[in-house]
């Protein structure tokens, strides 16, 4: 029993230990300099990442509350890579921040919540994990303590996430009323598609749609992304969204499988709205963070198409796309983090003529945006291609046509940024930025990820083999 516990929960235990070490580091942080602290914490995160690759067990714990298998471990490893990259990227910002240890404690608590959410096998466990992964995030959003926008964003975040989780809870309570169980294994057998069950499912779906910011539940996204510090924005847009999408896919495919004809239509509507509204709003944004917020909303629309396919290929394509999305979005946010930490500039006009002074950063940003838009040599193309292929397996060509048209619109606004960087003349571009070793390493990781995951098929094959 005890050895089972230690083996199956290895990743969670490791992360908990790291959080405790951070608490003790906080006590002795007076003696250590900020640079040393950051070195130690990044080393701990690296250990966490490496530890994840040595766990290959599957099974359930705590009376079927907690489950783990190879796919879940892989998904947790993806999140670990993302957290390490974000930590390395925000080096410059954190070096000057007064509360850097708390930043990591809160961030790793939310990561722990996401681990449990991925592994949850019971609606109670799922709800607890979801709250653990959102409440500290609201505190993180407020981490630029003196900035007005930051606290405004944090309030918007906490009130909308509290509201969405109440809807989710109301759905869960009605579902419990109709079938009398909360276990993911027992629910599908008891579902019969009665009106009350459908209503409760819609409430659950609304809760999920809030977290992944699908239109029409996206209104908090852009404000929160703009007000939060850039490091937190990238965490929100990649790690937190990715984790919820993983869970969303598995919950739809296993727990609500009997209702699949109903939720296919809901996903159809959600994905069309999400793509169109996300793209149209992205066209008119001037702030880079807001622009990336709407572009990430549009990406969720594409992911929903993949989810609607409902077979092994679509799960594989969703996981694969999130890996690619992680690398490309983090590369874009990484450049933004570095620029914003050193110059404080976040507007799109500030990037005019960026290529003249910072050619390397410009190329990284351009590569990331090409990958997000889905231009062939980059990984983004393959990710989108697999998503659309999975969605097309249902034979709904209207959806695929709308998606293809939306990709053209998306290309336009991504190219607008690239035009600003490379072509627009500017008398006073952002001065030459000196990039520290850690952010450089993070950007290098992202670039390797963008190029290699697309060209070599090992990652996709690996994900596919886990699903069989």
């Amino acid at each position, binding site marked *: 029993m005890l050895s089972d516990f230690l083996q199956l929960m290895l990743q969670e235990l490791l992360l908990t230990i790291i959080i405790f070490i951070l608490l003790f580091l906080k006590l002795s942080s007076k003696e250590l300099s900020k640079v040393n602290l950051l070195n130690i914490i990044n080393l701990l995160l690296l250990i966490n990442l490496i530890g994840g690759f040595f766990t290959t067990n599957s099974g359930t714990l705590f009376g079927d509350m907690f489950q783990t298998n190879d796919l879940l471990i892989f998904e947790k490893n993806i999140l670990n890579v993302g957290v390490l990259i974000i930590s390395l990227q925000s080096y410059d910002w954190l070096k000057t921040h007064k509360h850097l240890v708390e930043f990591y404690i809160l961030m790793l608590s939310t990561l722990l919540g996401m681990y449990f959410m991925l592994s949850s096998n019971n609606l*109670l466990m799922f709800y607890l994990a979801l709250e653990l992964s959102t*409440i500290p995030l609201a*505190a993180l959003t407020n981490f630029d303590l003196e900035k007005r926008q930051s606290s405004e964003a944090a309030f918007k975040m906490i*009130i909308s996430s509290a509201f969405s989780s109440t809807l989710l809870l109301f759905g869960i309570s009605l579902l419990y009323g109709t079938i009398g169980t909360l276990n993911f294994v027992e629910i599908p057998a008891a579902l019969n598609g009665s009106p009350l069950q459908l209503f409760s499912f819609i409430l659950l779906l609304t809760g999920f749609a809030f977290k992944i910011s699908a239109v029409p539940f996206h209104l908090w996204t852009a404000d929160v992304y703009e007000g939060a510090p850039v490091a937190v924005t990238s965490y929100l847009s990649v790690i937190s969204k990715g984790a919820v999408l993983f869970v969303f896919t598995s919950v739809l495919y296993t727990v609500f499988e009997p209702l699949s004809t109903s939720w296919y239509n809901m996903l159809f509507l959600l994905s069309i709205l999400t793509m169109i509204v996300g793209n149209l709003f992205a066209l008119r944004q001037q702030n880079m963070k807001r622009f990336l917020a709407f572009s990430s909303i549009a990406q969720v629309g594409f992911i929903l198409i993949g989810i609607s396919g409902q077979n092994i290929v679509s799960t594989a394509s969703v996981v694969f796309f999130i890996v690619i999305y992680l690398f490309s979005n983090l590369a874009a946010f990484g450049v933004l983090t570095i620029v914003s930490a050193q110059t404080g500039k976040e507007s799109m006009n500030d990037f005019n003529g960026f290529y003249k002074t910072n050619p390397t950063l410009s190329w990284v940003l351009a590569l990331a945006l090409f990958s997000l838009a889905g231009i062939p040599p980059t990984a983004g193309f393959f990710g989108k291609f697999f998503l659309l292929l999975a969605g097309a397996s249902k034979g709904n060509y209207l959806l695929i046509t709308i998606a293809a048209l939306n990709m053209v619109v998306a290309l336009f606004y991504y190219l607008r940024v690239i035009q600003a960087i490379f072509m627009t003349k500017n008398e006073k571009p952002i001065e030459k930025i000196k990039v520290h070793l850690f952010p450089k390493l993070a950007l290098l990781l992202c670039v390797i990820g963008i190029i290699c995951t697309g060209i070599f098929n090992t990652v996709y094959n690996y994900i596919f083999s886990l699903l069989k």
Partner: protein
Amino acid sequence: MNEISINHILFLSTALFFIGLYGLFTRRNMITMLMAVELILNSVNINFVAFNKYLFPERLDGIFFTIFIIAIAAAEAAVAIAIIINLYRSHQSIDVEDATEMKY
């Protein structure tokens, strides 16, 4: 004495849910909005307890869920109030109409 039927209790919880929703959408004071969210959470609690007692008395899933919801609601309120205090320091107000720097 007649026992109260489950319909009455479900009516109460649903009414509470919509009162909470109404409060959340119409109130402009941040603390009051938080209170509205708590109302909705309490309606969920009533739902769980009623379903557990009337329909599935052999297992205690619903009661446990309620206990966890109460604990989480407390944590959520603590973080939200901390954020509101911080917001008050910069905005000198806890009215949502005064915190509208970012739009569209």
